[in-house]
Structure formats: structure tokens, C-alpha cells
């Protein structure tokens, strides 16, 4: 089965610009999760979507937002980019619900802010 796919692989922006990152989950998975992996900080939870609705949100400012489409793919939007937004952004998907549904990760989008 195809894994979680993310695009683009690498995105270079300047301060103040807006970035859009995309994620396609594994077929049959309805939940999509976004994480930020910044140097030295590990993975920090950003957003969780399930069946088109935002289920939970991490401790990030409102300029981080997203959505999930009817086909369960998802977009992460980051407005008013700041230098500290430079990081690897990982998307994961799972079957509906939490608990015993492990998350499968994509390769990530590396966002570089100049």
C-alpha cells in the first residue's frame, strides 16, 4: 500500500510570506496529524483532523491553520512566516480514532525561512 505522501519536499520562503504544505494519507485512513520537528525540540503536535473536522490543536499560534478535504487529504497553512518556523513538518495518518491505531508518517516537508 502507498504510504503517507507529503509535498513539497522542500519549501523556501522569506519572513512574512505564507506557506502551504500538503499531505495525502494512506488509503482507508481518515485521521491526519501534523507535527513540527524543529532542531533540538523533537516532534511537537500541531493539528489533528478527522473526517474533515479539527479534533485537537497543539500549543501553536493561530497563524498555523489547516483543513482536511473530503478525500481526507490535508493542508497545513502557515501565515506571516517567522524565522523560527524553519523546521521539518511531518504529517501522519491513522484509521479512525486513537488508542490502538498507530500513526504512519510521511517523509516530511522541510520549510526554510530566509
Amino acid at each position, binding site marked *: 500500500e502507498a504510504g503517507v505522501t507529503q509535498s513539497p519536499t522542500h519549501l523556501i520562503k522569506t519572513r512574512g510570506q505564507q506557506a502551504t504544505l500538503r499531505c495525502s494519507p494512506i488509503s482507508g485512513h481518515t485521521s491526519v496529524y501534523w507535527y513540527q520537528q524543529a532542531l533540538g525540540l523533537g516532534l511537537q503536535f500541531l493539528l489533528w483532523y478527522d473526517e474533515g473536522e479539527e479534533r485537537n490543536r497543539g500549543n501553536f499560534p493561530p497563524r498555523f491553520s489547516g483543513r482536511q478535504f473530503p478525500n481526507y487529504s490535508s493542508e497545513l497553512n502557515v501565515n506571516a512566516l517567522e524565522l523560527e518556523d524553519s523546521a521539518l513538518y511531518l504529517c501522519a495518518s491513522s484509521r479512525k480514532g*486513537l*488508542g490502538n491505531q498507530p500513526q504512519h508518517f510521511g517523509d516530511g516537508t522541510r520549510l526554510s525561512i530566509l
Partner: protein
Amino acid sequence: AQSVSQHNHHVILSEAASLELGCNYSYGGTVNLFWYVQYPGQHLQLLLKYFSGDPLVKGIKGFEAEFIKSKFSFNLRKPSVQWSDTAEYFCALLRNSGNTPLVFGKGTRLSVIA
């Protein structure tokens, strides 16, 4: 709020040495615990998971982990490491209730030298 601590940031071992990576968590309720591995240039992969039952869980590639509830620990072990085990290892926790996301530790980088 729950948290996960991985005290070793970088571990360097020779091939055939035994491995133990520490993971401690803080949460008083029922948890599900995971170890993920990220090989160089690859996406995060699930190594093993604990939901309930036998506290000693076996994962892929000869890894195992033991859940010790009294110590809030879920250490990862392997009796004999190989050069191909060089990777970053992440411990993660999932609360067994509510719409909550995975909480990751900051990761431990393992370097195996010949």
C-alpha cells in the same frame, strides 16, 4: 499535561554492544506507549507499541521494550546492535481517553560504530 522524557540525547555504541534507551513519562492515567525510529533520510517508522497485557513487548528488528508502571518507564532494549541500527529513536505516549494526540520525547540519536 502529560510529557515524555528521553534523557540520552546521543548514544554511541560499538557493534554487538547491548542497547538500552531510557523513556519516562508523566501521566497518572492509562497510557499507550510507542517507540518510533527514524533512519537517516527516511520517515518515522513504528518499532513497537504497548497497549495492555504483557508489559514486555517485542517489536521489529530484535527490539523490545518493557513497561514498568511503578516507574513510569518504557525503556527500549536490544541485546546486540548493528551498524544499521544507527538512527534517531523517539518514545511517544498516547492517553487512553479523549481526543488527544501523540506526545513525543525529544529523541535519542544512536550511532553504532564498527
